[in-house]
């Protein structure tokens, strides 16, 4: 007797848990051959709200973790992704990629996580400075995460577009809420399962599926979101995000590069979601004692 296949339920990922959308709605995007990709959660503005709350809650702990620890967790994410590479290749192919492209993309995604894993405890060292001020003060500038970052993932392909922004954002100690690509959502949900099994604290990355036309507005107007990363080429969407961002002066970063390129990973994608903090402290210089003794 033929075995009945167990179908996967695609859920959203909020605060380290996999709820269904609170709205109870779903949609069924289809691939190029017209096959349904499955029933995907049609997240609502309330899911955005819940995700931002979860991200804010996770931000403090994540940003204060030792950079070395963050580095290990990103490495662990790569390990988990490696273990599931076949599943991602299948999903990418189901969404329309050929096998070679799908394998290249998964390999690149794994390697990119490894790349950013290495940056966790190095980017501050590279970018920080001790500033030689003219008064008797020790003055240094270092980097701190911006906070909660809303990510509107690109729509070229589903896995590398997502990881290429999520990785630098969390490398720098931010928490994020990701709107997965509307039409290619499978890898985003499966990636959430990777995150969930990789020691990444719940809430650091939250992933929602659904219609961008419905979700970008509540995310980009949310007063507790500190930055928005937009990956895409739609000028009207970008402008709407920029306008929505004004009320609490969110930092808006727009990307239109091809994330499959090797150059689409660098330290400056991390510093895009960092704030420069400069600290001053007096230096006491007693008497004539000098370092030339």
């Amino acid at each position, binding site marked *: 007797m033929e075995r009945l296949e167990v179908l996967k339920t695609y859920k959203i990922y909020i605060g380290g848990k996999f709820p269904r959308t609170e709205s109870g709605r779903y949609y069924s995007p289809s691939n190029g051959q017209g096959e349904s990709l499955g029933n995907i959660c049609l997240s609502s503005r309330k899911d955005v709200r819940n995700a931002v709350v979860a991200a804010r809650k996770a931000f403090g702990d994540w940003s204060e973790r030792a950079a070395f620890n963050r580095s290990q967790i990103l490495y662990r994410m790569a390990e988990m992704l490696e273990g599931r590479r076949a599943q991602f290749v299948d999903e990418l192919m189901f969404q329309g990629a050929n096998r070679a492209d799908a394998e290249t993309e998964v390999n690149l995604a794994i390697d990119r996580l490894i790349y950013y894993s290495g940056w966790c405890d190095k980017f501050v060292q590279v970018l920080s400075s001790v500033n030689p001020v003219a008064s*008797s*003060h020790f003055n240094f500038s270092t980097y701190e995460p911006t906070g909660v970052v809303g990510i509107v993932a690109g729509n070229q392909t589903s896995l590398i577009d997502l990881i290429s922004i999520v990785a630098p954002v969390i490398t720098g100690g931010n928490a994020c809420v990701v709107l997965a690509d509307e039409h290619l959502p499978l890898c985003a949900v499966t990636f959430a399962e990777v995150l969930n099994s990789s020691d990444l604290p719940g809430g650091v990355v939250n992933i929602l599926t659904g219609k961008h036309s419905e979700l970008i507005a509540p995310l980009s107007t949310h007063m507790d979101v500190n930055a928005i990363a937009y990956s895409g080429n739609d000028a009207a969407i970008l402008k709407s995000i920029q306008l929505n961002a004004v009320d609490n002066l969110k930092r808006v970063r727009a990307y239109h590069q091809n994330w499959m390129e090797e150059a689409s990973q660098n330290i400056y994608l991390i510093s895009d979601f960092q704030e420069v903090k400069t600290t001053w402290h007096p230096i006491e210089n007693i*008497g004539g004692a000098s370092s030339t003794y």
Partner: protein
Amino acid sequence: MEKKGRLEPTDFRQSPTIDKVGVEERVARFQTRSIKDESKMQGLRLALSMIDLTTLEGKDTPGKVKQMCYKAMHLHDAHQGLPTVAAVCVYPSMVKIAKNEVRGSGVKVASVSTAFPSGQAPLDVKLRDTKFAVDEGADEIDMVISRGKFLMGDYSFVFDEIAAIKEACGTARLKVILETGELVTLDNVRRASDIAMFAGADFIKTSTGKIQPAATMQVTYTMLEAIRDYHLETGRMVGMKPAGGISTSKLALHNLVMVKETLGNDWLNNEWFRFGASSLANDVLMQILKAETGVYQSSDYFSID
């Protein structure tokens, strides 16, 4: 705030900490005060009246002391209406001579004591030294603290010694010299100031004049703040005497600015503020004459004692 009067020794390790760079910034700001015209003349006269004219040398003789005493009462007789200095400051052996010279002038006689300048003698010797000076007629006693004990952290010893000397002074006013050049840090200066005041000092004084650095503005400012805090806490006024290194009118005026802005006008008289200096007087005199005549002066026209 509750006024507690004389206090028992407290835990002087709890004296406020001092940030030296912050002190330097505050001092720099005092130095930007521009003292002109009438306020300059008034300030210079005030400075003259606050001077403790001092000779503290191994080679001091009655002849030297007498000449200095004359200068104390007659700073520059070619010019009318100048004040006398506040006091002359001498070794105990010269007190009687000085006292005779300045009698009736209002100029006080201050004597250093307690094995000045090192203070390296047992308490009974220090007490004897002090009583001798008082018996000879000293109006004021300038004692030194035991810096070695202080730096060893034996604050009780330092406190008890000052209290004992204070008792030996009787009615003479006690100035306590911290010798800040040996205490090195401003935290130590502040702590030593607190110890001296709580032990009964009428004045606190920076230096013996034998150790550099002496009365820097940073040190004087730190001590003035200690005096202000002590006054706020106890209601008792304590005087201040920077000594050593203040040789120009400009520096003297900066010190007065510091006193005015830290303690207020109540301290701006020679009952509560003194300059321990010997060469300051002539510079102030030259400035006064310059202001009045419009002509820059030469030291050839002012007596050097």
